[in-house]
């Protein structure tokens, strides 16, 4: 009788332990994806509006790298980006209704595709991606800590993103390597997101944009790198986030930056 209970106990203990071990051996299916969304959610689609300050470096093939500063104001998934250049400031407003461009040469905001370049960087790489709204989980490779995201909206440029997760050497940080792919899943562009703590918030601290999909290291292979300096909670009226009010929104952002 006693042995029977003991056997039963042993059996259940084995089941519990094995489930526990499986959990360790194979991470839960969308754990890494939900972590990606959560880390990105420090600014994109976060509960309150945030003002993000970034230090960036532009890399050139034939010139010395140049330093710069970027500012981004987020309200839900909407984003206003300010790029400081020596020839004047450029503002980019990313909305559902399109991407708008404004500088001191234009009378009213100009709608653009978002795929053109400013210095050595592409505008689409400077803007943050909303992984929870624009992409969904397509495939998950449990063995290689790798997953595939598929766009939910046909208007997005890249239909697929392949994400590989690694641990950074020396530090306990994680590196998310994002490979943007075309319709036939051929790699087109590579970005690397590194986690970190900024203003007490856990988020993606550093983003590296590679020149080509194949290059891996060395400053010659970078297009553009930005590091987040600070994240501040702020208030902004969401009504300002449209193309008509863009100038006022820029003015408001300037006031926040002072």
């Amino acid at each position, binding site marked *: 009788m006693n042995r029977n209970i003991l056997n039963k106990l042993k059996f259940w203990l084995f089941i519990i332990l094995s489930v526990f071990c499986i959990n360790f051996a194979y991470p839960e299916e969308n754990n890494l994806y939900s972590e990606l969304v959560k880390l990105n959610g420090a600014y994109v689609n976060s509960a309150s509006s945030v003002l993000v300050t970034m230090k960036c470096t532009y890399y050139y093939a034939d010139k010395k790298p140049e330093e710069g500063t970027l500012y981004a104001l987020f309200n839900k998934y909407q984003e206003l980006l300010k790029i400081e250049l020596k*020839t*004047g*400031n450029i*503002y980019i407003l990313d*909305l*559902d*209704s*399109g*991407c708008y461009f*404004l*500088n*001191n*040469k*234009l*009378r*009213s905001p*100009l*709608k*653009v*595709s*978002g*795929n*053109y*370049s400013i210095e050595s960087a592409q505008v689409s790489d400077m803007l943050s991606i909303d992984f929870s709204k624009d992409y969904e989980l397509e495939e998950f490779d449990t063995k290689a800590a790798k997953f595939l995201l598929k766009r939910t909206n046909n*208007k*997005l*440029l890249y239909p697929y993103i392949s994400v590989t997760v690694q641990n950074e050497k020396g530090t306990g940080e994680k590196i998310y390597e994002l490979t943007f792919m075309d319709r036939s899943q051929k790699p087109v562009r590579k970005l690397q997101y590194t986690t970190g703590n900024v203003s007490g918030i856990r988020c993606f601290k550093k983003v590296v944009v590679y020149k080509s999909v194949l290059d891996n290291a060395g400053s010659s292979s970078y297009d553009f790198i930005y590091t987040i300096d600070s994240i501040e909670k702020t*208030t*902004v*009226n*969401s*009504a*300002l986030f*449209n*193309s*008509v*009010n863009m*100038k*006022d929104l*820029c*003015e*408001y952002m*300037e*006031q926040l930056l*002072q």
Partner: protein
Amino acid sequence: MKKYALVFAVYAFIHAFRAVCLFSYDMGFSYSNTTVFLPENPYTPQTSSTNKFELFTTVNFLKSYYLLSFSPSVYYTDDKIYPGLYGAKFMVFYNMFSFLLAKNNVYFGEGIIDNFLFPLSFVNADQAYSNSYYQYTNFWNTAFYCDLNKISVPLMFTTSVIADTESIDAYKKPQWLVLFAKADYSDKSLSASLCYSPIYKNDAWENRISGEVKYIFANDFNLYSNASYNFDKDIFALLGASKAFLVDEYTFATGLELSYPDNDMQYAIYEVIDYNYLSLVTGVYYVNNDTYNNRSITLMNTLSLTLNNLQISITWDSWNLLEKRSAYPAVLQIGVKYEKL
């Protein structure tokens, strides 16, 4: 002397007010000179020139639900100094609604040689075209916006009234009035607008319907078309395409436009070259000129230098390249402007 004392008092007041109430303020100025070179004739002088210098201060109150800004100015023209209002803006916004009452820059639609979506093209032609920051005036207008994008519907509705600001500034009855109701659809690459506008000019009302479709391809190739129809069966239409290229530090934008204003055909090709602080807009258009009753090729050139908030621009429009220049007028515009975005 009293005038200067008044200006000084205003500045002293602004500074004193700033100490107790939080707001931002800027200063700016604009200078413009327009010289028209007329063809040789026995009646009028061959060149006529106008100058205007305006100095203004902008005071901004920007809170999260309203915005108030005004720019009192003094301007100098025809050897006299006048007080004026360079611009003003009052805006209240709540969720997807906003209301605006302002004297500011109004512009929408596409087109370098013509823009038939923009109803102001039909009353004040020289203000209509080109989205460049130099050469524009501020208009008194009021508007009500309803932005359904906030509830994930890609539509926006605008109703607005634009008034003849030149007359209002001279304390006269407005000579023209533009009313419009507009619906805009917009997603990442396609935008479409439909606009209904009753226009009051020459003591009569005219009804117009205009529309525009624009498509932006992923490689920044733009295709756009707008058209306008009034109920007297006049059709105005424009078709254009442009593409931007990037070569080292230069940005080139090449454009082609086909315009059909009122039983007439115009063709234009233009090039925009941007290099650091400099930008050059140059183009030619082939036009059937009614006034001179023949076809002509017109040259338009604008060279501008932008140093942060300082703009210097030189525009040269000559009427016909094929004929002797003395037979046709030409316009030279020089503008200097310092204004924050």
